[in-house]
């Protein structure tokens, strides 16, 4: 087990990077603490897998350092870093049985035979492939192959960390949920640092204590699922986390608040005072669909909106409304009733109204 630190890390697949767009990872500092369960969340092509391969040592970063417990390991191979990694698509040694597949990393580490047997059986039980141990691995289904692949990552007890690169992509949804729980249990039982790469927010929040959201080669926010939901640090986090994502509206600066298309939105005093100090005109307000209130009657703070669509998702409804040329999504309870085209009054509770300057959140300073 180890604490993994990334120091001003950057990576480009091009030998002569010309600009920022040539970098898969841009100037990144991060610490994965010992024994944590982390998720690395982001869309395809944001640099997640690149970062994972840099941590494991399959890839050498073009700039910056990787430190394991404070020791620089840039030049060390995965073998020397003693790290386990599970890939997106199952890699199995198809001439071997399931048992031999699981025992392979242990045999390579010269673990005594009796211990190998016990450990392989333990892991096989956890993954529910105990009855398949003596089958040839190549005759397994895709699900089972991926379990074997994962088992090989979990079987070594002394690893610095286990890295998962979207390991459940090929697994069907029912089993996915079960395996995620299993991984969580394994983490609780063995207390190993785990980093789990995924583009699925649900997968990330069920597995991880803390989630790092990656966007454009950078970690834009690192926090608990609640923090990511309530205080998205970057417009991308707001948009990417949540379903539907955060409503983001480009606005202009006004005294006491902001305005878009003739609609005035008042802000908190501290937000206003900070707003007067920044120069950038790239301003946005963001509010989650869950936090917008729809009221029957007009009030001082309410905004006039028109209902465009009501989607019934079974346990709740997603209402699409139009305010000053902007379409917003509002989440309402199942008993919400409204006709398309009807006028409604929206309320933006001030504690849930986020202000973004140059895509980053403006936070209250203590």
């Amino acid at each position: 087990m180890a604490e993994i630190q990334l120091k001003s890390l950057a990576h480009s697949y091009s030998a002569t990077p010309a600009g920022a767009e040539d970098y898969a990872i841009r100037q990144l500092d991060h610490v994965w603490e010992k024994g944590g369960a982390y998720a690395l969340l982001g869309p395809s092509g944001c640099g997640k897998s690149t970062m994972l391969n840099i941590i494991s040592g399959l890839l050498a970063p073009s700039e910056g350092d990787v430190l394991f417990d404070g020791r620089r390991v840039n030049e060390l191979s995965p073998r020397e870093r003693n790290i386990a990694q599970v890939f997106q698509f199952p890699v199995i040694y198809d001439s071997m049985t399931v048992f031999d597949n699981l025992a392979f990393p242990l045999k390579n580490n010269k673990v005594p035979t009796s211990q190998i047997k016990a450990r392989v059986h333990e892991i096989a039980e956890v993954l529910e492939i105990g009855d398949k141990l003596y089958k040839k691995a190549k005759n397994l289904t895709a699900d089972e192959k991926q379990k074997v692949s994962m088992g090989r990552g979990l079987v070594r007890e002394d690893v610095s960390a286990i890295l998962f690169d979207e390991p459940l992509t090929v697994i069907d949804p029912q089993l996915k949920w079960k395996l995620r729980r299993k991984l969580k249990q394994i983490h609780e039982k063995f207390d190993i640092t785990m980093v789990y790469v995924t583009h699925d927010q649900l997968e990330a929040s069920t597995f991880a204590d803390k989630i790092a959201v990656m966007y454009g080669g950078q970690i834009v926010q690192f926090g608990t699922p609640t923090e990511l939901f309530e205080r998205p640090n970057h417009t991308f986090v707001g948009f990417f986390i949540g379903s539907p994502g955060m409503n983001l509206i480009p606005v202009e600066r006004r005294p006491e608040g902001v305005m878009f298309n003739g609609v005035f939105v008042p802000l908190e005093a501290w937000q206003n005072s900070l707003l007067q100090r920044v120069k950038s005109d790239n301003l946005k307000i963001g509010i989650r669909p869950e936090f917008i209130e729809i009221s029957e009657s007009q009030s001082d703070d309410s905004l006039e909106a028109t209902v465009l669509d009501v989607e019934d998702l079974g346990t709740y409804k997603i209402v699409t409304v139009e305010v000053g040329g902007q379409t917003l999504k509002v989440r309402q309870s199942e008993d919400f009733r409204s006709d398309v085209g009807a006028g409604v009054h929206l309320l933006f509770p001030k504690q849930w109204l986020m202000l973004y300057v140059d895509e980053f959140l403006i936070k209250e300073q203590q």
Partner: protein
Amino acid sequence: MAKIPNNRAWWLVLPVFLLVAFSALVPLMTVVNYSVQDIFGPGQAYYVGTEWFKEVLTNERLQDSLLRQFLFSGAVLMIQIPLGIGIALMMPKSGMKASLVLILLAIPLLIPWNVVGTIWQIFGRGDIGLFGWALNSMGFDYNYTGDTVDAWFTVLLMDVWHWTPLVALLCYSGLRAIPEAFYQAAEIDRASKWAVFRYIQLPRLKNVLIIAVLLRFMDSFMIYTEPFVLTGGGPGSSTTFLSQTLTTMAIGQFDLGRAAAFSLIYFLIVLLISWLFFTAITHADKEK
């Protein structure tokens, strides 16, 4: 759409049947026909039954030739298959270097058999051949025309030079087809180089190795031109392999009946051993 049963459809197979008949069955049956007759000349043939087969199976000259043939093919496989795999493993994976190595490897394969024989015949001579001269000046008493061991050594070396590239190229293509993910997983699993070879590369080379083993077995078992040009089968008959014995019998001595019986047995041996290799390799890792 309902299927209409119509046995006349069998006529559609006729062209293929005729083609196979004329290209394979008719010539083969001609040989079968010869093998049961004693032929003195046109119109002078007598039915002799299985006599030629009995004679061929007990003929000492043929038995010696068959033994030599097995030794030679065995040696060829034992040397060329591991050597070919080894070369393929050491070859660069991509880029200019890879292209260069591929071209260099392919050159021996492009040279006609009798030219290969001629090259080595001159190359191995003690007076004007670089190889023979070099060995002699290093103090080795090397003479492939006079010494049985030297003759065998030269014939084998020539065949290794000529055909190992084929094995290497086949294995190289097999190795390139292994996805990078397997090597990454092995690296993560801390597999040794040997374990990577034994559990990743070798199992995935199985199919190309079947082809390589079969091709090299059949070709070496039927070798004719190169040793004929190089040693003429000598010294004595020490490098006279089956094809050459057969040719001498059929054309040199015009012993058509005996040669036909011999051909059939030869053909069956090649077929049997190829089948054995194929089943042995394909069944090697079936589920127990």
